[in-house]
Each structure stands twice: as C-alpha cells, then as structure tokens.
C-alpha cells in the first residue's frame, strides 16, 4: 500500500514538473502573437468565447480516465485518491469509482437526473449528496463534468491581461437570476487561441472569493477537427476561505471510446464495489 501511494505521489510530482514545460510549449505561439490580439472584445465575441468553452468541455464520444486527487487539508493532512471516471455527455451521465486508498475503494458517485448520489459500500447505502465537495476534497462536480456557463451566467469582458508571461482574456461571469449555481460570480482567464480557461476564480454572493483554480497542463485528444479537445491534465485548486486547503487533480489514461450504458447504473457501481 505504501509503495502504491509513493508511486502515485511520484507520478503526480513528475506530472507537475512536466506541466510547466508543456504549458509553455502550448502557449508559445500565443506569446509570440500576443501583440496581434485585440485589447478588448465586444459582447458578441465574449458570448461566443464562453459558448465555445462550453462546447470544448463536452465530448462527442464517451470518455473515461483515471484521476488522482491529492488533497492537502490543514487539519487532516495529505490524502491521496485514485478513481476511475466515466462520462457520457450526450446523455449527461457520469460515474466515478474510487480505486484507492483501500479504505475508500469501492465508493462511488453517480449522476442521475442532475442529482449526485454517493454509494457507500460498507453499508450498501445510496445517499443524495451536495455537488460542492467530492469526497471531502476541494473539487466539485463541475471539475469532472462538462460546463454550461453560457446558459447559467451572463458574461462580461474585463480586460486583456497577462497570466505570467502569457496574454489572457479576463472574462467576468454573473449568475443569471433564478438559476441555482455553485458560485454567483466567476472570473475566467482564457487562453485566446485555444479558448480554454487557465485560471478560474469563483465568488460567493457576498463577494468573497471561494476558490481559485489553475489548470496548468493540457493535452490534445481526439482527431483534428470538430471532435478534437484540450483536456486539463493537471488542475490545482485552492480553497480561498479555508486557507491552507488545496487539491491537485491529475488526469491519466484517457480513452475516448464508447462505454456500456450499464456503467451509469447503480447496479454496476454496486457490482464493482463487491
């Protein structure tokens, strides 16, 4: 067990080191052409950009991957999870099965009719849970699922800014009235040419910053054209209210192939847990 944990930690550390290099490689053309970017976007361009981000977060095909979550908790210390994630965006289905650590192996989440259910193998119970925290980490359901920002929020251009060396569009999102969202306002720092968010900040209704997310490593998956996607391979999430808590999410072994419908059922998760 200790060897497995050390292997996963090493894996995450290597990925983190690689992350900066790959990000620089990916953003190199953007840095070169920074001078040519328009300094402001009109409302139509902003809306189009946000809509494109939503589209790019959605897969035409089914998706599955292994995800490592390293939670640094100020009270509980470090925790490491490994899970298998299965997505079927066409039918809005999502299944997460915990593989490690041994104490959590067999635990699973299932999205059914926009509700998140947790399966606890020790008791065999299914409970509807909040989407705010996955297994007590700083991740929430949106970190694993596709986005729907263009429908849930109205967008506004803030400025052309620099994130480190790289030029990014800073877009501010405000929740549309009557829609239940996890954050009332969101700040997005979007890479202009690929339209992916490198930094995300979520705010509460009171204006307090809740969470900052850096998506530092990206990988191109799928064939050239409509089905091609950029996936954030490494995400660093910082809890801005409970300072000191942070989660690193690393995605591995991505596969874009058709999945059986049975994977998105309670029976499948229960069988896997056994």
């Amino acid at each position, binding site marked *: 067990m200790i060897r497995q944990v050390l292997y996963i930690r090493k894996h995450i550390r290597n990925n983190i080191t690689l992350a900066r290099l790959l990000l620089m490689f990916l953003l190199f053309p953007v840095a070169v052409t920074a001078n040519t970017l328009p300094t402001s976007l009109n409302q139509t361009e902003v809306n189009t950009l946000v809509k494109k981000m939503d589209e790019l977060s959605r897969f035409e095909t089914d998706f599955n991957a292994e995800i490592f979550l390293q939670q640094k908790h*100020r009270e509980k210390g470090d925790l490491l999870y490994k899970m298998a994630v299965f997505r079927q965006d066409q039918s809005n289905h999502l299944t997460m099965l915990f593989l490690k650590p041994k104490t959590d192996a067999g635990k699973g989440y299932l999205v059914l009719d926009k509700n998140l259910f947790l399966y606890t193998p020790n008791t065999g119970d299914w409970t509807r849970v*909040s989407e*705010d925290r996955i297994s007590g980490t700083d991740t929430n359901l949106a970190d694993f699922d596709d986005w729907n920002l263009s429908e849930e929020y109205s967008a506004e251009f803030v400025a052309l800014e620099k994130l480190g060396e790289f030029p990014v569009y800073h877009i501010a999102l405000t929740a549309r009235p009557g829609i239940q969202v996890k954050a009332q306002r969101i700040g997005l720092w979007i890479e202009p040419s690929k339209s992916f968010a490198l930094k995300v900040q979520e705010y*509460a*209704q*009171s204006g*307090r910053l*809740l969470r900052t997310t850096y998506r530092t490593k990206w990988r191109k998956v799928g064939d050239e054209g409509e089905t091609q996607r950029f996936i954030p391979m490494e995400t660093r999430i910082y809890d801005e*209210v*409970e300072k000191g808590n942070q989660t690193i999410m690393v995605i591995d072994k991505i596969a874009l192939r058709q999945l059986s419908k049975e994977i998105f059922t309670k029976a499948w998760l229960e069988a896997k847990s056994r």
Partner: protein
Amino acid sequence: MKLYLTIAFRNLIQAKRRTLLLGSAVALVTFIHIGLQSISNGYMEGLVRGATAVAAGHINVVGLFKHNISRMSPLLNDSDKVKAVIAESLGDDLDSMVDRNSIMGRMIGENRSVYLFLQGINLNAEKNLRGVLRPVSITNADGTKENLGSLNTLDKPYHIILFQTQAKKLGVGVGDVISFRAKTAIGTNVTSLTVGAIVEDVGMVSQFFTFTSRPVVQELMQIDEHVGTRVLVYLKDRESADAKLIKLRQALEAADFKLTDYQSASLFRRWPNLERQDWLGQRLDLTTWQDDIKEAEIVVDSIRGVSYVLLLILSIIIIIGIMNTVWISVRERTNEIGCLRAIGMGSRGILLLFMIEAMLLGLVGAVIGGLAGALGVGLISALEIPIHNEAMRIILFANQVNLKISLFEIVRAIFIFSTVTSLAALLPSIKAAHIQPLQAINHIE
C-alpha cells in the same frame, strides 16, 4: 396498637446488631435510589433547558421548501400569517413565540473549522435564551473578574456569539473574525463574523448551535425579512405540547397551509425521508420539544435503566436479608410466641407483631436513607462543583454537577422501601402466626 409498637420497638433495640445491619442496608438502598434519581433528573433538566432555549421551542414550526423532487431547503414564506394562526389557535396557552432563521454551514477559524447551525435571532425577543446564555467569566492576573464579551453584541452587525466549546475548537477569542460558509438555495455563500461573546456551554446543543442577528442570516441566505426558516412556540405549560400540536396542525391546515405527516422524531433525523417525498413547494413541519430530544433521551433511559437494575438487585438482597432475619427471629422467639399465644394473643396479633417490627425497621432505615440522600443532593448542588471533563459536560448537559430531587420523589422512595421491607417479612410472620401455642412453649432451641 401502641402495645404492638412498643413490643416491636423493644425487640429491635434488643437485637441491636441485626437491626443496625438491616437498617443500614435499607438506608443505603434508599440513598442510592435518590442519588441516581437526582442524576437523571438533573440531566433531564439540562437537556430540556438546552433543547427548549438553545435549539428549539416547545413546539417548532419549520418551513420546508422543495425546489425540485430531490432538493429541499428550510424556508418559511408567510411567516407573519403562520404566526397569526398560531396566536389565534393557542390563545392564552401561548407564552411567546420567536422567529429564527437557521442555516447549517462550516464555521472556519484560524486553525480549524466545524459544522454548525447558525441561528439568526432577535435576542431582545428571546427571553428563554437570555436566561440560559451566560458569558464566560475569567479571572485576570490582578484578581478582577471579566466577562468574555456581552450578549448585547448581537445589536452590532456581523457579530456572533459562540459557546465555549466552539471557541476552543476554532481557536478564537472575543474580537476575532471568523468565516461562515453555507450552501443556500441559490448557491454557496460566505460571510465574515466577529466574535462578540463567548458563553458557557449548555450541554450537547453547544456543539451544534450558535447565534448571530437575523439580518446576517437573511443576507447570507439572500432572503427578505418576511421569509424565515422557523417559528419557535413557547407554551405556558410545556407538558401540554402534544395536545397543542394537534390543535395547531388543525388550525394551520384550516388556514390552507400544507403540512408534512407527523412523526415523533426530530426533523434532523427525518430530513432524508422528507427530501425523498414527491411533493413540491412549501410544507410546514411541526414537532414538539419531546420529539426533538428523543435521541438524547437515550442517556436518561440508560441512567434510569442502570438505576432500576441496581435497585432490583439491592432490593432482592434486602428481601432475602429481611426474610432470613425474621426467620431467625421467629426461631429464637418461638417460646415467646407460645407465651403470648397462651395469655390470649391471637395468630393475627403475632402476624401483626412481626410485620410491625419489619415495617418499623424499613421505615426508619428508608427515612434515614432518604434524608441523607436529600442532604447529599442539596450539599452537592450548593457546592456547584464544576465538571472539567469536556465529554462529561456534553453528556450531562451541564458545566457543573447538577442534581435535582423533589420532595415527592423522596417520600415515594421512603414509601417503596419501607413497603418492600414489610412485605419481605410477610412469609416468616405468617409462619410464626401459625405456630401452635403448646408446640411453641415446648420448643427447645
């Protein structure tokens, strides 16, 4: 009768050692019974006091709003109309009622965070709560005493009152700023609150509840002042809560409010089931204070259970002891029984003689035990012995040893144990009464 009493009393005096031993045993059992009874009474009092002031009223009317088939929030629309129905329905039986807005969330301190129910209150209207919340008093280096803040701090915006246990867990003191994060009907919201006062714990409820002003929770939940979460109803006689609940349910239904099905359990326990039910919109949920403390009552039941088992064992020992002693006494005094019968005392008289002897022994023992128990309870209560162990404070719902016993309970204990002692002597007394006079006179030890 006076003659019988004199003979019985003299016999008891004559068998000094035996009388002392048995009398002490009866006194000890009575003393133990009163001690255990006072512990469970003290616990129950703390539990009810905490539950009905800090956590709930005598009757609680909570608004539950289902946004969709599986998501439910505590929201009470038309709280003014609900209060009007309550006032009209209960009339003179109503003592007071208060609005509270409650929301569960994570209180985040410098080093730690805890889940708490943050209650938005109007402290001026909360006379029961004011009676229970006492700021912690500390002694300074120069010997002067100082309170950790003031309850009136809630008049200031964005201030909070924390219980001692909570402040210790969060590692905060008066004047420190803490954050409260909660999931509301419209999403996650966070607010910053200044610790205005740290109050003494009121048992287990101190682990879960904390107080701020109503506008803070309204802002946090993004609701206007006419929307709340619950109304706490205080009755003049809290024991009538069950009957008044039925009356209130009928009145609210007649006023076109939809209600959840009544179940005698706390709302916290029933929440998952209610969330799964297939209704939408608002429903009112009504519970009594007994329903809300049902889970905690297990401690009272446990104390009482242990108490009864212990008493049963001790009573059996006493019964055997008394029976055995009276048997011996009958054997020793067989000649005396023969003489008494020979000079005209009937078998009933003999029976009465032994029964009075046992009853006198039991009565004196039980009275001594009862008085010693009452004195002990009074003394311990007067000493106000603090409980330093946090776990014990939580379990016993008190910061100091809290024992309660009523005069009725003392009299009842004396009656029970003197009766048990008398009944234990019945069989050997009947045997003594049936001894033939001639046989008794000729009896050789």
